[in-house]
């Protein structure tokens, strides 16, 4: 078997550091996911409003998020707020803001899609039964929407977890940065370490994202 340099992982606290880095990445992404889901539902509702102003605004918001690379957003929030307002946001706070800003828009679009997939006659039937607008959403529309959302949002959530690799650019030491540090610190003693360490990082990302897919599959079956 070729030397993958896996031994560098067992030097000192390297393995613990790598897990700590994964912890940072997961903390940022899961916090953002929760915020994105809450805000995303609001954004999604706004997107389906008939009001042309709110529609136009939501459209702009979504397009900006789609067009702007997450990297640019990270720099804008981390350095831009200091430059203009003098706020000293930490790297992790900035990351959560950016990821939530991004997630809310994409989640909103998914919610919008799920909402308009509910046939018009269900609204009409609800009205015929004497349910108010709020009740219609609470008892008829949202439960079905959530079910339809699950597979779509899992895709977004795993993407958010993987995109946390960008936050190393604003000084947050997450799993990818730790792995680069380990590789570089050992570049004289084990020059082949890069392959082994990146392979480990791949496995870590996989085991972080896999349970989410499993959960999604489970929920889909359960709620069918």
């Amino acid at each position, binding site marked *: 078997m070729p030397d993958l340099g896996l031994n560098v992982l067992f030097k000192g606290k390297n393995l613990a550091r790598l897990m700590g880095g994964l912890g940072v990445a997961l903390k940022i992404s899961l916090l953002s996911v929760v915020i994105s889901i809450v805000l995303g539902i609001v954004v999604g509702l706004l997107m389906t409003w008939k009001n042309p102003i709110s529609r136009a605004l939501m459209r702009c918001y979504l397009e900006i998020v789609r067009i702007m690379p997450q990297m640019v957003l990270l720099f*804008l929030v981390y350095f831009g707020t200091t430059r*203009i307002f003098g706020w000293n946001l930490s790297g992790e706070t900035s990351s959560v803001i950016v990821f939530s800003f991004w997630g809310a828009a994409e989640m909103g679009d998914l919610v919008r899609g799920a909402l308009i997939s509910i046939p018009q006659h269900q609204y009409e039937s609800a009205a015929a039964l004497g349910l108010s607008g709020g009740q219609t959403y609470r008892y008829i529309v949202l439960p079905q929407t959530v079910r339809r959302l699950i597979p779509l949002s899992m895709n977004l959530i795993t993407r958010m977890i993987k995109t946390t690799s960008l936050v*190393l650019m604003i*000084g947050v030491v997450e799993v990818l940065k730790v792995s680069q540090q380990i590789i570089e610190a050992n570049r004289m003693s084990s020059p082949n370490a890069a392959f082994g360490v990146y392979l480990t990082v791949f496995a870590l990302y996989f085991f972080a994202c896999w349970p989410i897919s499993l959960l999604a599959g489970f929920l889909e079956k359960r709620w069918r």
Partner: protein
Amino acid sequence: MKKNRKLFAILLTFALVLSLAACGSSGGSAASTTTDSSAAEKADAAGNATGAPAEESSQDSAAVFRTLEEIQASGTINIGVFSDKNPFGYVDENGEYQGYDVYFANRIGEDLGVKINFVSTEAANRVEYLETGKVDIILANFTVTEERAEKVDFALPYMNVALGVVSPDSRVIKDLSEIGEGDQVIVISGTTAETYLSENNPEITLQKYDTYANAKNALENGNAVAWANDNTEVIAFALQNPGYTVGIPSLGSQDTIAPAVSKGNETLLKWINDEIVSLADENFFHKDYEETLIDTYGADYEDSLVVEGGVTAQ
């Protein structure tokens, strides 16, 4: 009502992002108008111009960086270093920062009597960190260039860098004129070596590679007669790979590596300069080299790489 408020919140987010985008670009151009590093007022003016669209422009210059007194009062100094550039700044297996730059940073913290908060920086965001005052000092193998000096203030240098050329022992290239017509030289795309050779020696055919690993393989396979790169890189390569010699250890203009502080941070700049000068008495940077760099570069290059007391006598 509730929905309106949410709408308003989203509108605000929008406005924020747009204004950030607008100010970011204007800030960059305003900062580059000051070329004279000695004029503190000018730097202050630039600081104000950067924040001009914001309300508190008068206090902005104070917000951008922390003076020496403020750092000492807070008890912690933020120093931006590389965390993955062995042997200059890296993190060892116990999670401790190590390296040539870090050794100096630790001394700074000790002599200032403050704790050090190391911030992991990337090559691409070092200037930004100083311009926003998110770190007090950058000690990340920061090469002094005119372009950068317009945006940050460099202290006295503590290391030399130049280009170097490594070639196999069977045919050591000691001068660029030895490179014949059919010969090719390896460079890594985007490095100073590539720029220097294509500007000054356009007659030499270059073989360009994107990564260090590919360039290394190419030289080992004998695809070219020599490899030009930063001299620290080629020296380290020749030491680790027997059969190769650095025929030209220093080519082109001598550049230096120096600590940098936010533009206009006179008190901190002066303190660092005084520190570097006084450390010369104990040959601090030679000691630093022997602690951190000697395994990579060997003792032969100690005097040509180290700058003591900020004096580049070469």
